[in-house]
């Protein structure tokens, strides 16, 4: 027996079909406008949780990247300081070797003393280098000079760390107490005292001082090399962190896109499909609604 169809059913059914087709069209249009298939958590809960975590990561990594760049520049500048000091010490060492015996005249020795003095002043100035509003070798006390004219250390041993990766902090300053003053270093020496020893020997024409400065200057050179090596190690750590960030950025961006982004070609094809369906539903509805058997029966 055929199913009975009431008049309201025909209208309600047509209405429901049109609404359904429109609803689908609106959903596809939203994807087209946003180019995203994941617009809200309920669209794909697992995907959304993953994407959200990745975006949190991205947000933090952006700052870590920035900090890593700052750390890199600070360490690079500090390396430059020690390079300059190393060069000055090398020259001082050469002068010490040359003046070790008593063979040179007083006049010559005084000229060498003058050069040594320039070297000494240059080293003090270099050790007080400021970068990004900070005296790099001052420790936490970074607003004033690190060393006064006499070579007295005015900073502290504070280690400034910067987070360059989640949970990874790298010190961006070198302890002047260790690197320059030799404190806490096995066989360490005070670089400034080494220079002062040479200077005193030259200025007072005291060969004994000149001779004893040779060993001190040699140790100072080694100390500078060690400090530069330490900086190099830290800069490698930063480079590794930046490389990890770059890799993560690439992978995470890809994963986020895979989960979140709509396939543009599919979306446009769906839009066309939905429009076709809507047209077909409307056309069918029109046929059903325009056909009025009631009128035909009654004539």
């Amino acid at each position: 027996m055929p199913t009975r169809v009431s008049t309201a059913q025909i209208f309600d059914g047509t209405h429901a079909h049109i609404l359904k087709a429109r609803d689908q069209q609106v959903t596809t249009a939203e994807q087209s406008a946003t180019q995203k298939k994941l617009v809200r958590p309920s669209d794909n809960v697992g995907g959304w949780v993953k994407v959200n975590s990745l975006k949190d990561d991205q947000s933090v990594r952006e700052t870590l990247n920035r900090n890593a760049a700052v750390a890199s520049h600070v360490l690079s500048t500090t390396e430059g300081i020690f390079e300059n000091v190393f060069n000055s010490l090398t020259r001082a060492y050469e002068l010490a070797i040359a003046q070790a015996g008593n063979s040179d005249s007083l006049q010559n020795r005084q000229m060498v003393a003058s050069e040594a003095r320039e070297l000494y002043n240059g080293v003090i100035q270099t050790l007080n280098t400021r970068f990004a509003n900070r005296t790099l070798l001052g420790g936490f006390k970074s607003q004033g000079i690190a060393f006064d004219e006499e070579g007295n250390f005015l900073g502290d041993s504070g280690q400034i760390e910067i987070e360059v990766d989640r949970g990874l902090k790298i010190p961006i300053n070198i302890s002047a107490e260790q690197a320059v003053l030799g404190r806490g270093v096995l066989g360490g020496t005070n670089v400034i005292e080494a220079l002062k020893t040479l200077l005193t020997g030259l200025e007072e024409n005291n060969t004994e001082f000149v001779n004893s400065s040779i060993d001190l200057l040699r140790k100072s050179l080694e100390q500078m090399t060690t400090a530069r090596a330490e900086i190099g190690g830290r800069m490698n750590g930063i480079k590794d962190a930046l490389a990890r960030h770059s890799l993560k950025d690439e992978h995470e961006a890809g994963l986020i896109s895979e989960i979140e982004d709509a396939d543009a070609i599919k979306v446009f094809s769906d839009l066309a499909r939905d429009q076709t369906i809507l047209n077909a539903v409307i056309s069918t509805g029109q046929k059903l609604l325009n056909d009025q058997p009631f009128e035909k029966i009654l004539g």
Partner: protein
Amino acid sequence: MAISNILETGRQGLETSRQALQLAAQNIANTNTPGYSRQKAVIESVEQEVTRGAVRGGGVRFREPLRVHDEFLEKQLIEEARGYGGAMARAGNIRRVQDIVGNEAFRVGDIVNNFFNSVRDLSANPEEPTLRVNLINAAKQASTNFQEIHRQLDGIRKDLDFQLETQVGRVNELTTELADLNANISRATALRAAPNELLDKRDAVVRELAQKLNVQVLTDQFNQKNLILEGVGVLVAGSEHNDLTVMRTPAEGEKVAGSADVFLKTPQALSKATHRLTDGELAGLVQVRDQVLNPAINGLDTVAFELTRTVNEVHRQGTGADGLSGRNLFREPNGVQDAAYFMEIEEGLESNPSMVATGFQADSPSDNRICLDIADLQNAKLLPHNLRDLKAPEPPVSGEYSDDTPAEENELGWGGASTTPSLEGQQTLNEALTNMIGEVGSRAHFEDEELRHQESIMQQLTNYRESVSGVSLEEEALNIMQFQTTFNASARAMKMGSELFQTILDIAD
């Protein structure tokens, strides 16, 4: 048979056809009336009487308009209406919650990210006064954002209670109408009238009620529809009814203090009904409020509480640029409840950025250890998996609340519990926010699917009902033709009887 019989039979035929035509017109007029059951003419022949060998009577009569209706289908519709009502209330309102917490244009997680990123920026350059100001602004922005989200969610909570009140009002209107209809149907039945329209109206009222709450519908021997809310009491009994009412009550389970509870008011007692609302729109509203919204707000409050508490704990250990220590970055929270709503930066911080501590040592502009420790909090597992375990006990409150009763406030204007919950580490602040929003999303997805399912069932049942009880214009057109023909034929028979009578009279003349 007497000639008068022919006339009488013809008259009966005319009358019957007229009533049938009227019924067809009635059906056609109500084609689009929601819930209308078409009526069929029940026509029966009148028995002839044989008296002293003479046949008298016979003919036809219109017995009654039969309401074409399937009571079993009606029961199914009522049964499914509850599920549909509940799904509708839940899906729509959970979507609202999701739109706030899962808004892609403004990620809730970024509240935490932006704050900690500003701390990291300061840690890289603690000497920079601009970055202190930046941190203060980020802290202020975090507070404002937490407050705003809390306010919006609380707005939904208040709106759900308002919807509950409105729906309860509507339920009371419907139960009053149902009681009146029961009385009217009873009267009409006593007068042997066919109260078909009243029955349709009553079915529509019962269906609407079933969509609102999980009532049991019982039809008694007098065809009275009685409604019972199981475990609570009688809503409608014949022409009598009891009202529901809404009152603001203390906290219970996930329900917060001052939220609405539904009660049944009878002459004997006031009985709580909320816990017995298992389906329908009213239950849906309560479920969204207590199972989705309140946990989401609690999650937000917990994250805000833990953020302010732990940041303050570290910050107090540090020394500001002014050389002073022991100060907070945020106003110290009093408890988890409403922690997001009351979140603010410490007083005086905005006008005095040197209060921000970056390190432990005074006179050490590059000491950034406090900043690093604060930044570490973002990676720390500070919260347990189930944030519900952290909900601090509510302060005991006796008696009823008035409509706008706020939570208890201390002198600082903070509400909520005074005990600090114990916190164990299984998820970070970001993870807690993500999981909270994920739970809302998961529930929203489930309810969307459930609503689609319920809509499909309701549509099917409605179609079945329509196919049984709905008016078909084609059918009515045929009925019109049929009874019009019969009407004409009966008139013709009467005319023939009249002519016969006239012939007899002419013979007599």
